[in-house]
């Protein structure tokens, strides 16, 4: 038996206090499609970044054709015949297909020679694409095809695909997977990173499941079933019950009926159908894999994007904590006082007929510093000079200052250390205890179960309410869409 094309042996990688990879073993045989499955944070992307030279491992060995190699950077990876397609489009929209490929492959730009070369590449790969089309004008499916051609342009024998279908609508996703199979017939071995079980089962020859930084299972795809894979991904540890003692639920303050919201730019499914109610005093967790409509749903509830269909009934005031602190949650150049004034708008006590009483606003900002334990010398300091945790405390303070009846939080622990994250979760629970309805999305299911009284799952844009106390693996399966498959047969 020949040596595997690519072997990653006992790879270790640590980021700060978290161990992303704890001795992961993975091998890719000649001419196979090998799916790499795992939950968010299981280490799939890190492993692939190591194989492509974007990240250096702390330990372990990499072998190509049985010979040990060091992959210092993506250029070195390309020389070894490794090409990668990233999760997001990496083309230059105003360049043509040919120019984008030339840029990626280091080919001399311009002229007939380049066009012919690109046309030949596309034909050999079985991925026809007009060399003169502008990248920005291609459909998502064709843009993804361009990404693959860019990866292949350096004579790649190994193709790393990082969630390649997450940016595609379903019909184009099927076409794309067909192309990957055609590439296999032409001798290109592919590693397909995905969290979609169906995708892996449909196109892969072998499937490896990664959980918490170690490989828990590698097997032939034909021997696998969706439910066994899901169990492997989620772990067999008994899920903590989601239920907990809580304040008596009050009035319905969020009512959503037959909601449809188009996908935000950048892909994903949008919301295809959602109906639910949330009562005052509840903390409801919104569980979803990236790009399954959670962003759109929260923003529609916050009044930031209009739905195309359906009704939203929300009792105000509504406060929204966006995922990206620095780009949406605050104006970094503004002082804490100014961010407070911005967030409270016209209804604040320091606004009288459109005129501002800065002294009053500054006094209040000073009080919030103490109440929310924001470590800043005074309210005049620019928000961007604070640490991430203190910025988030400030954003939460501003959100709570509106005395919200509805609090929407989009991954509010992002980029925070454990202590700060726990504090944020605590604030959310306090808000509910004070009578707000809280809807929170967190990428980590365990964290979500810790915070939330009950769970709503968004999978493929469909909202599935989970019964109270639903076990972790049931929720995990719903997120992966397997419960739907089971129902369909």
């Amino acid at each position, binding site marked *: 038996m020949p040596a595997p094309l690519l072997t990653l042996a006992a790879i270790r990688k640590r980021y700060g206090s978290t161990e992303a990879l704890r001795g992961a073993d993975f091998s890719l045989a000649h001419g196979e499609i090998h799916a790499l499955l795992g939950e968010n944070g299981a280490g799939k992307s890190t492993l692939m970044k190591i194989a492509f030279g974007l990240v250096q491992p702390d330990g372990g060995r990499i072998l190509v054709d049985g010979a040990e190699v060091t992959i210092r950077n993506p250029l070195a990876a390309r020389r070894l015949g490794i090409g990668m397609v990233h999760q997001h489009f990496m083309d230059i929209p105003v360049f043509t297909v040919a120019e984008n490929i030339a840029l990626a492959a280091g080919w001399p730009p311009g002229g007939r020679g380049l066009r012919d070369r690109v046309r030949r590449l596309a034909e050999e790969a079985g991925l026809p694409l007009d060399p003169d089309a502008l990248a920005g004008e291609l459909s998502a499916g064709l843009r993804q095809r361009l990404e693959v051609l860019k990866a292949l342009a350096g004579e790649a024998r190994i193709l790393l695909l990082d969630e390649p279908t997450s940016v595609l609508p379903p019909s184009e996703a099927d076409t794309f997977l067909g192309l990957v199979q055609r590439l296999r017939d032409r001798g290109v071995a592919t590693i397909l990173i995905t969290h979609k079980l169906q995708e892996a089962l449909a196109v892969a020859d072998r499937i490896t499941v990664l959980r918490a930084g170690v490989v828990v299972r590698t097997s032939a795809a034909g021997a696998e079933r969706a439910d066994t894979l899901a169990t492997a991904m989620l772990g067999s540890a008994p899920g903590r019950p989601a239920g907990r003692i809580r304040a008596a639920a009050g009035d319905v303050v969020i009512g959503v009926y037959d909601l449809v919201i188009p996908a935000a730019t950048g892909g994903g499914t949008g919301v295809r159908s959602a109906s639910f109610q949330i009562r005052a005093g509840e903390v409801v967790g919104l569980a979803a894999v990236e790009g399954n409509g959670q962003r759109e749903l929260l923003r529609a509830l916050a009044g930031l994007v209009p739905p195309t269909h359906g009704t939203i009934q929300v009792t105000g005031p509504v406060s929204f904590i966006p995922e990206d602190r620095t780009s949406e*949650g605050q*104006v*970094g*150049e*503004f002082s804490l006082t*100014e961010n407070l004034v*911005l967030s409270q*708008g016209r209804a604040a006590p320091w606004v009288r007929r459109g005129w501002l009483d*800065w002294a009053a606003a500054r006094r209040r900002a000073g009080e919030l510093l103490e109440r929310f334990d924001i470590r800043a010398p005074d*309210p005049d300091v620019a928000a961007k000079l604070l640490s991430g945790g203190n910025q988030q405390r400030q954003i939460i303070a501003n959100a709570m200052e509106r005395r919200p009846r509805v609090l929407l939080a989009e991954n509010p622990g992002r980029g925070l250390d454990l202590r700060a994250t726990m504090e944020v979760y605590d604030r959310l629970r306090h808000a509910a205890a004070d009578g707000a309805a809280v809807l929170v999305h967190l990428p980590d299911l365990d964290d979500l179960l810790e915070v939330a009284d009950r769970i709503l799952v968004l999978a493929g844009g469909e909202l599935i309410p989970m019964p109270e106390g639903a076990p972790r693996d049931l929720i995990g399966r719903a997120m992966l869409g397997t419960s739907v498959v089971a129902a369909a047969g």
Partner: protein
Amino acid sequence: MPRDPTLRRLGQALRTPVLAVMIGLAVLVIGLAAAGYPPLPALAALWRGALGTPDAVLSALLPRAIPLILIGLGIGLAFRAGAFNIGAEGQFYAGAIAATWVGLTLGAWPRLVAVPTVLLAGCAAGLAWAAVPALLRVRFGVLEVISTLLLNFVAEALVSWMVLGPLQESKHTYPQSDPLPLAARLPQLPGSRLHLGLAVALCLALALWLFGRRTLAGFQLRAVGLNPAAARVMGGVRPERFFAAALLISGAFAGLAGASEVSGTTFALFQNLSPGFGFTGIAVALLARLHPLGIVATGLLFAGLEAGAGAMQRDAGVPAVAVYVVEAVVILTIVLADPAARRTGVAAPNPAGR
């Protein structure tokens, strides 16, 4: 900042502009010496032309400052909202055309009514001229930097056509309009060329300063300029509205400048009415770091340089364009000294007061 600016803050805010002007003058001196002009007599002539006599101040410096301040105020507002209006020159001409047209028809009106009407006509025309780029930007995403700039050429061509066509003087000899009737002229200080437009400009500067410093809308406008996404998500404002409004108002300011120039200084429309007020106005706003009261000061400074340039050419034989070197060096110094300005092309808002 919520508190009144302290002297220390004021000093910090003034440090860079003062330094920039010093460097600009130093470059002028070196350039003069290198070109064989004795620097001291040239500088003396510059001083005389700008501040040397009461007449220089009242008839050269101050009248020249009026359009610069008005245009600078509008540009300052637009830049604060992130709207890069490079089209003040065109909006100035649009205002001048409208003011001339309206002014020529109002000879029988009482002055107290005719003059405000002329000025408002200028505002409206400047606003309309800016409405095109505003609409293009908000509806179709056309960058206002380009559309405002290109409309300058259209406006200049329009003036040329006007003074050779519909608005040409009665004898159809010269490419200029008839002089405005007295009723349509801004009152002048007797014995000088200084007109009431200065008071209008100062009042508007004060109003803009209060708007930015004390009103919620002025504050939200600044948030839109700094971070439109956060202004929308956290502040609940609609950034495109503020953006468009700021662009329109800055057009109205430039249009007002054109009207006041016709109604207060030249009393007629002709080609090259503006010696580049619309572009110097950008420099005026940037040097003041977009602060309305600072714009009054920098408007006076640039007006002084340009007024002095004439005297320098007359008395010392130095080409008047030499002062544009000073203006250019001042802007470059400001842009280099301000990291935020380097990134965006615009000076950061003045921390000493909004």
